[in-house]
């Protein structure tokens, strides 16, 4: 099945000469949750804004479900819902009015039952008569999502959806995103919370300095780029790591009770067995042993650093 969003050779150079995007090629699969990671100013929001029609691209093509975003902009845009990063709502409108307005703006006939369902799903029904200005930050974020969902989009862009949101609301949003995915909605989210991508995404794309550095299935990414750590709880504390262990990437905890060995789990010779042998020879005994996979955050930081 063809991808739902196809971005091909997209570049963006602003009038100031700043190159925000350099030749972006990216395909988003139908029904997946795609996490776009990148440091501040990497080009995440510019890329989303181009797909949604808010920013004009300098070159390249973008299609949404086969519809070119310039030639068939009506069909392309009607398939997309966007929740931008900033809480930008007409402050003096009621929740009910503004969500119904969004539905009309996207060309859908009035459907009060559907809008009610959206508001109920987002725990906003009790606030339907409230003006946006009176809502808390979390409620405003829900309202932005309700507006984006009001026209039943097939693709939902969430630009930093949980920035500044408390833990409970974040959990609610994650649950909502999963529900939407079950309904067949494709979700593209940008986030600073790596654990969000780690918990939710099917695939991860990393963008840095206007270039896609990597696009990978999340599990595969964790496997191939992941580094492992071997943690050794020592029987008696060490003051320093003996010279003879200089060939190993070892770290000693400040209290001298734990040795950490970081290694590449893809390597033919990760060195775990020889380290353990050498420790025994040196008379360093340990009472417990553990291993940890590196998190997506570490993978991300490494990728961005390597690229810098």
């Amino acid at each position, binding site marked *: 099945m063809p991808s739902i969003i196809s971005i091909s050779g997209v570049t963006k150079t602003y009038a100031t000469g700043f190159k925000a995007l350099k030749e972006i090629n990216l395909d988003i699969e139908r029904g997946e949750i795609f996490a776009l990671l990148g440091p501040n100013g990497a080009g995440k929001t510019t890329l989303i804004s181009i797909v949604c029609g808010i920013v004009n691209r300098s070159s390249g093509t973008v299609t949404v479900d086969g519809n070119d975003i310039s030639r068939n902009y009506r069909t392309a845009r009607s398939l997309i819902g966007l929740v*931008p990063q900033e809480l930008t709502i007409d402050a003096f409108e009621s929740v009910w009015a503004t969500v119904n307005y969004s539905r009309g703006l996207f*060309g859908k006939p009035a459907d009060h039952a559907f809008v009610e369902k959206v508001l109920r799903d987002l725990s906003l029904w009790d606030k339907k008569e409230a003006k946006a200005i009176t809502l808390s930050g979390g409620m405003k974020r829900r309202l932005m999502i309700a507006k984006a969902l009001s026209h039943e989009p097939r693709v939902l862009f969430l630009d930093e959806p949980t920035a500044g949101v408390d833990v409970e609301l974040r959990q609610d949003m994650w649950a909502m995103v999963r529900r939407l995915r079950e309904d067949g909605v494709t979700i593209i989210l940008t986030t600073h919370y790596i654990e969000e991508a780690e918990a939710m995404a099917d695939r991860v794309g990393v963008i840095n300095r206007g270039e896609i550095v990597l696009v990978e299935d999340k599990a595969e990414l964790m496997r191939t780029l992941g580094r492992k750590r071997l943690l050794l709880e020592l029987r008696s504390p060490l003051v320093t790591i003996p010279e003879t262990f200089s060939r190993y990437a070892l770290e000693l905890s400040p209290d001298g009770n734990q040795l950490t060995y970081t290694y590449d789990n893809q390597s033919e010779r990760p060195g775990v067995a020889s380290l353990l042998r050498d420790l025994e020879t040196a008379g360093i005994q340990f009472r417990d042993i553990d291993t940890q996979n590196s998190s997506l955050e570490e993978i991300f930081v490494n990728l961005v650093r390597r690229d810098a």
Partner: protein
Amino acid sequence: MNLRAVWAIYKMEMARAFRTVLQSIVSPVISTSLYFVVFGSAIGSRITEIDGISYGAFIVPGLIMLSLLTQSISNASFAIYFPKFVGSIYELLSAPVSYLEIIIAYVGGAATKSIILGLIILATAALFVPLTIEHPFWMLAFLVLTAVTFSLFGFIIGIWARSFEQLQLVPLLIITPLTFLGGSFYSIDMLPGVWRTVTLFNPVLYLVSGFRWSFYGKSDVSIGISLGMTVVFLFICIAIVAWIFRTGYRLRT
């Protein structure tokens, strides 16, 4: 055509007017009444008639025009500037709507509001002075044409403005002086020769003059020229808006 979107925007704009009814309707009506009291009584006691029309009645078309111009501009400029200012313009730009639909909705909303206001002022004026409308069709035609033209002009200002100060700049520094100097409160025949010629360069003169003709059948310049100039302003505004949307000027980066 995405008529549902046009209707959604139009309805939202009209709802905003009714929400701010004090600012949108009551305030201009009070200002107009004050003009009647001040100009009508103070000047009217010295100038009893112009072209056979009582001074109080003479200034009615000019007063309506003054409100029509300023309100059309402020309605339309604010309507598009506010979403730009708070950032909610993202929704409009990402929606499946064409530029034409955006204009029809916003300019239609702004023009409707100022036409309603113009009619309210007309009704208010009827309480103060005896009014005759010799050419009701042309009166409405001038009302609608002017409201649409200056709503378009306001829309352009709203897109151009980067601050609230800029938003107020053109109405305050250009439109209000031009209206006061455009024969709203006097006939240009009352001016010395050189100032009469200077006034002929004031575009508002043609609007006021044409509008007054539709009431009393008398005008400073011929009705054909007034109508022609109004249509020329309309097309200038349409051309600028078309350019803005073709280039994405200050809307899409």
